[in-house]
C-alpha cells in the first residue's frame, strides 16, 4: 500500500530543507531546484496516496449500500447501530447497518518515541485517512506552485536561499501537522508552522514594520496556542492518550481513562480550549488581527501560509477531532457563532482597504469564518470549503503578487488599467475572484452552497445566524472583489513606470491554479447520486457519519445565494465601473462606518492599549521595580536587620557597617554594607570573640548535660 509510505510526503521537504540549508548557496538556482523537485515528488506521492484512500473509501461506501439494499429487501427491519453517536446527526429515523469489517479508510502506524513515566508513552505515528489525503493534495500542490512562482518573484533577493529553506521547512511542518496520528504531533506541527510563519513574515527584517507584524502574528497565535495546549493536556488527562483514533473511540464508547464515564463538562471545556487554539491559528474573531498585518511578508508566503495552508490548520484540527466535537453541542454552538461573526465582520473590513493584499487577507479571514461555521453543522462542508478555498485564494494571492511585481506597490490607488498590459494575470485573477464570489459553476459556489445548505438543514438559532450572515457575507464578498477588479484592471493606469506581464515562472502557476479553481467544485456536487463517489465519500471519517450525512441540494438557497452574489457584483460594477479617485471612493465616504472599519473596529487599539502596552511598558517595569525595590530590598533589609542585632552586641561591627554605608558606592550598592560587612568584618578579634562565645555556650551546654 502506498499509504504505508505516506511519511515520505513530509520527509521529502524536510530533507530538501536540510540540503538547501547546507548546500543551497552553491547551487545554480540558490536551492530552489531542490525544493521544487522534492515537493514535486511529494505531490506525486500525495496523488497516489489520495487515489488509494479515495477509492478505498468509495468502495467501502458501495459495500454498505449493497448490504443496505439487501437487508431492506430481505426484512426491512432496522438493525441496531453500533455508532449511535454519529447517527444522532441523521435524525431521519433511518439507521443503516454497517457490515462487519467495512470501515472508512485509516492507515495508522506508529512507533513509541519515549516513555514519559507513569506508564504513558509519547508516540510518533502517521494517520492516513481521507482528511489527511485531501490535505496532502492541497498542501503539496499549492506549495509546489508557490515555489515555482517564487523563483520568479524572489529573483535577485540576496536571501533567496534562506527563503527556499524556510518554504521547505514550512511545507514539512504543515504536512507533519496533517499526518500526525496524535495530538502531541499536531501540537508540534502547529507550533512549527507558527515559527515558520514568524520567520517568513519578518523575512525582510530590516523594516521595523515587518518585524512588528511578525511578532504580532506569532504572539497572537501563541495566545491561542495556550488554549490548544490546555485542550491537549485536558484530553490527555481524560483519555490517558494523545492518540486521535483512541480518543475518538473512547468518546464513542463514552468512557474516560480508567473506565470512568465521560465527563461531558470537562470534554466541552477541552474542546473549547482546543477551539481557542483554532481561533488563533485560523484568525477567527477576536484573534484575527494578526493576519492582515502578516501581509508584510513576501506575497508567495501570503499565498502559501496565510491563505491556503497554515491558517486552515484550525479548521483541520476541528475536522480531525470531529467525532469528539460532535459529542458536545455546546462546543459546536460556540464554533458556529465565532465563525459567523468572523465571516461577516471580516467581509466588511475588506471593503475599505486600499492595499490589495489586505483585501485578500480580510477575505481569507472571512472565508475561514465560513469554514469554521460550516463545521458546526457539517464536516464535509467545512473541509470542502477549505479545499476549494485553498486553490482559489492561493491563485488570487499569487495574482496580486504578479500585480505588485509589475507596479511595485501594494496599493490599488497605484494600479488601474492593467487588463491590457497583464492579460494572463487578469484572466486568472478574474477566475479566482468569481470562484471566491461563489458564481456558479466555479469551485467557490459549490463549497459555499454546501456550507449554507448545512446551516439551513441544521436550523435552529445558530443555523439561522450562520445562514443569514453567510448570505449577506456572500453579497459583500462579491462586492469587494468587484471593487478590486475594477480598481485594478479597469480605467487608466495611475502608478509609476510601465507595468508588464510577469515572467513565465510566475504566469504558469497562476494558470495551473486556475484549473482547480474552476473544476474542483464538481468533486462534490450536492446531489444524492453523486455522494457515494464524490468528495463526501472520499474524505469521510466514518461510514456512520457518511450515511447520516445530510447533504441535499436546496434549489431556492442556491438561487438565492447566487442572486446575492450577482447583486453584490452589480452594485460594485455600478460604483466602480469608472474608477473613482481614491478620496472619492464611495466606501470611504460613509462617515462613522468608514472610520470604524478603517480602524478595524478599534480592536488593535484595544489590544495595544489594554494588553500589550500595559503589560510591556507598565506591568513589566512594575514587576522589575518590585524585584529591585521590594524583594531585593527585603534581602537588603534582612542584612541590615542582622546588622542591627549585631549593633547591640558588637558595636565595632556596627560601626564598620555604617561606615561602609556612608562611604558606600551609592544607593544601589548601599545594602551590601548590611549583611555582608557584618558577616565579614574582617576583624580577627570579632571572629575570635564569636568563637569564644560559641565555645563557651557549648561548654555550658555540655556541662548542663
Amino acid at each position: 500500500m502506498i499509504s504505508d509510505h505516506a511519511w515520505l510526503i513530509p520527509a521529502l521537504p524536510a530533507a530538501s530543507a536540510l540540503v538547501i540549508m547546507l548546500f543551497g548557496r552553491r547551487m545554480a538556482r540558490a536551492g530552489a531546484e531542490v525544493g521544487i523537485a522534492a515537493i514535486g515528488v511529494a505531490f506525486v506521492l500525495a496523488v497516489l496516496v489520495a487515489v488509494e484512500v479515495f477509492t478505498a473509501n468509495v468502495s467501502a461506501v458501495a459495500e454498505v449500500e449493497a448490504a443496505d439494499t439487501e437487508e431492506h429487501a430481505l426484512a426491512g427491519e432496522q438493525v441496531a447501530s453500533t455508532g449511535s453517536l454519529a447517527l444522532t446527526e441523521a435524525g431521519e429515523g433511518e439507521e443503516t447497518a454497517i457490515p462487519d469489517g467495512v470501515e472508512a479508510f485509516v492507515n495508522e502506524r506508529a512507533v513509541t518515541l519515549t516513555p514519559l513515566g507513569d506508564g504513558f508513552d509519547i508516540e510518533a505515528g502517521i494517520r492516513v485517512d481521507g482528511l489527511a489525503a485531501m490535505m496532502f493534495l492541497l498542501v503539496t500542490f499549492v506549495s509546489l506552485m508557490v515555489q515555482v512562482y517564487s523563483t520568479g518573484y524572489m529573483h535577485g533577493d540576496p536571501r533567496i536561499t534562506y527563503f527556499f529553506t524556510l518554504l521547505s521547512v514550512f511545507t514539512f511542518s504543515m504536512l507533519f501537522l496533517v499526518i500526525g496520528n496524535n495530538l502531541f504531533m499536531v501540537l508540534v506541527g502547529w507550533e512549527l508552522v507558527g515559527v515558520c510563519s514568524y520567520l517568513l513574515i519578518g523575512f525582510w527584517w530590516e523594516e521595523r514594520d515587518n518585524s512588528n507584524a511578525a511578532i504580532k502574528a506569532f504572539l497572537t497565535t501563541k495566545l491561542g496556542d495556550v488554549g490548544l495546549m490546555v485542550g491537549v493536556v485536558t484530553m490527555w488527562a481524560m483519555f490517558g492518550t494523545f492518540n486521535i483514533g483512541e480518543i475518538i473511540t473512547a468518546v464513542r464508547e463514552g468512557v474516560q481513562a480508567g473506565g470512568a464515564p465521560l465527563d461531558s463538562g470537562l470534554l466541552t471545556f477541552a474542546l473549547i480550549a482546543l477551539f481557542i487554539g483554532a481561533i488563533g491559528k485560523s484568525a477567527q474573531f477576536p484573534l484575527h488581527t494578526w493576519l492582515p498585518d502578516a501581509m508584510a511578508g513576501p506575497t508567495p508566503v501570503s499565498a502559501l501560509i496565510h491563505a491556503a495552508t497554515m491558517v486552515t490548520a484550525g479548521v483541520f484540527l476541528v475536522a480531525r477531532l470531529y467525532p469528539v466535537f460532535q459529542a458536545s453541542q455546546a462546543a459546536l454552538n460556540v464554533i458556529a457563532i465565532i465563525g459567523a461573526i468572523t465571516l461577516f465582520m471580516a467581509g466588511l473590513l475588506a471593503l475599505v482597504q486600499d492595499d490589495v493584499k489586505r483585501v485578500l487577507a480580510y477575505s481569507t479571514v472571512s472565508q475561514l469564518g465560513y469554514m469554521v461555521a460550516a463545521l458546526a453543522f457539517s464536516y464535509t462542508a467545512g473541509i470542502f470549503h477549505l479545499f476549494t478555498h485553498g486553490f482559489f485564494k492561493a491563485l488570487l494571492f499569487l495574482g496580486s503578487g504578479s500585480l505588485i511585481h509589475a507596479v511595485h506597490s501594494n496599493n490599488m490607488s497605484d494600479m488601474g488599467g492593467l487588463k491590457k498590459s497583464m492579460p494572463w494575470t487578469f484572466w486568472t485573477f478574474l477566475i479566482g475572484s468569481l470562484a471566491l464570489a461563489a458564481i456558479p459553476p466555479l469551485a467557490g459556489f459549490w463549497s459555499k452552497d454546501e456550507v449554507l445548505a448545512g446551516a439551513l438543514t441544521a436550523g435552529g438559532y445558530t443555523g439561522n445566524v450562520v445562514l443569514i450572515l453567510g448570505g449577506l457575507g456572500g453579497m459583500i464578498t462579491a462586492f469587494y472583489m468587484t471593487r478590486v477588479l475594477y480598481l485594478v484592471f479597469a480605467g487608466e493606469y495611475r502608478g509609476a513606470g510601465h507595468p508588464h506581464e510577469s515572467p513565465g515562472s510566475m504566469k504558469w502557476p497562476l494558470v495551473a491554479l486556475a484549473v482547480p479553481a474552476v473544476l474542483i467544485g464538481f468533486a462534490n456536487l450536492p446531489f444524492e447520486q453523486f455522494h457515494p463517489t464524490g468528495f463526501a465519500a472520499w474524505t469521510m471519517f466514518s461510514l456512520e457519519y457518511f450515511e447520516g450525512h445530510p447533504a441535499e441540494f436546496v434549489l431556492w438557497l442556491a438561487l438565492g445565494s447566487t442572486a446575492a452574489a450577482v447583486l453584490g457584483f452589480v452594485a460594485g460594477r455600478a460604483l466602480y465601473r469608472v474608477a473613482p479617485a481614491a478620496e472619492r471612493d464611495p466606501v470611504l465616504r460613509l462617515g462613522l462606518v468608514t472610520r470604524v472599519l478603517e480602524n478595524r473596529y478599534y480592536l488593535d487599539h484595544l489590544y495595544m492599549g489594554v494588553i500589550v502596552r500595559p503589560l510591556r511598558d507598565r506591568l513589566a517595569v512594575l514587576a522589575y521595580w518590585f524585584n529591585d525595590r521590594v524583594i531585593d530590598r527585603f534581602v537588603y533589609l534582612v542584612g541590615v536587620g542582622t546588622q542591627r542585632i549585631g549593633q547591640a552586641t558588637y558595636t565595632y561591627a556596627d560601626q564598620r557597617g555604617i561606615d561602609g554605608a556612608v562611604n558606600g558606592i551609592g544607593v544601589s550598592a548601599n545594602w551590601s554594607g548590611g549583611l555582608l560587612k557584618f558577616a565579614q568584618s574582617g576583624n580577627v578579634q570579632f571572629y575570635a570573640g564569636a568563637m569564644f562565645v560559641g565555645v563557651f555556650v557549648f561548654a555550658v551546654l555540655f556541662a548542663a548535660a
Partner: protein
Amino acid sequence: MTVIDVVMLAVAVLGGASAILVVVSRNVVHAALYLVVALISVAGTFLLLGAEFLAWTQVLVYVGAVIVLILFGLMLTRAPLGPMPQDNDHTRLAAALSVALFGFLAVLIMQAFGDTALPLSVTPTAAIGEILYVHWAFPFMVLGFFLTVALVGAIVLARREEGEGPEPLFDAEMDSERPTPAPTDVSTTPGVTSPSQEIRT
C-alpha cells in the same frame, strides 16, 4: 593546708596578678616584663607539681627566648613604647566574657576536683628523656620537622622581597583597585577618633 599549698597559692596570686597586668598595662614594654613574671610563676607551678624538667624548659624557652623575641618584635614594629591606650572598644564586653568564662570554669573545677588530692611525685629528668626518646620518638621527630618548617616559614614571611620598596605607609594600589574604598586609616573611622591612636613613626 600544707606548706606546699601555701606556696602554690602564693605563686598563683603572683602569676595571676602579673598576667592581669600584662593585659591591662598601657605600656607595651611593661606588659612584656609582666609576662616574664607570669611565665616564671607558671614555671614555679610546674616545679611544685614535680615536673622539674618542664619547669626549666619553660624558663629557658619562654623567659629566655620568647620574651626576647617579643621585645625584638616590639622594637622592629616601632610600636609606640610610651604609655598609651592599647585597647579597642570592646574591653568591657571582653571583660564580661572572660569573667563569665572564669566563673563558669571555676565552678566547674570546684565541682569536679574540689576534693581531689594530687598524688605529688618528682619526675626525674632521666625518666623524661628515656620515655621521650623511646615511647614518643616518632611524634618528637614530627615535632622537630614542624619546628623547622615554622622556622623557614617565619624567615620567608619576614624576608623583604627583592624590588619591594621600603615600607610604604599605605598600600595605595590595593585600595584604588576596589570600587568601594575600604577605609584603612582608623583615624577616619567615625567613633574611633582619639588622636593618640594615630601612628607615630
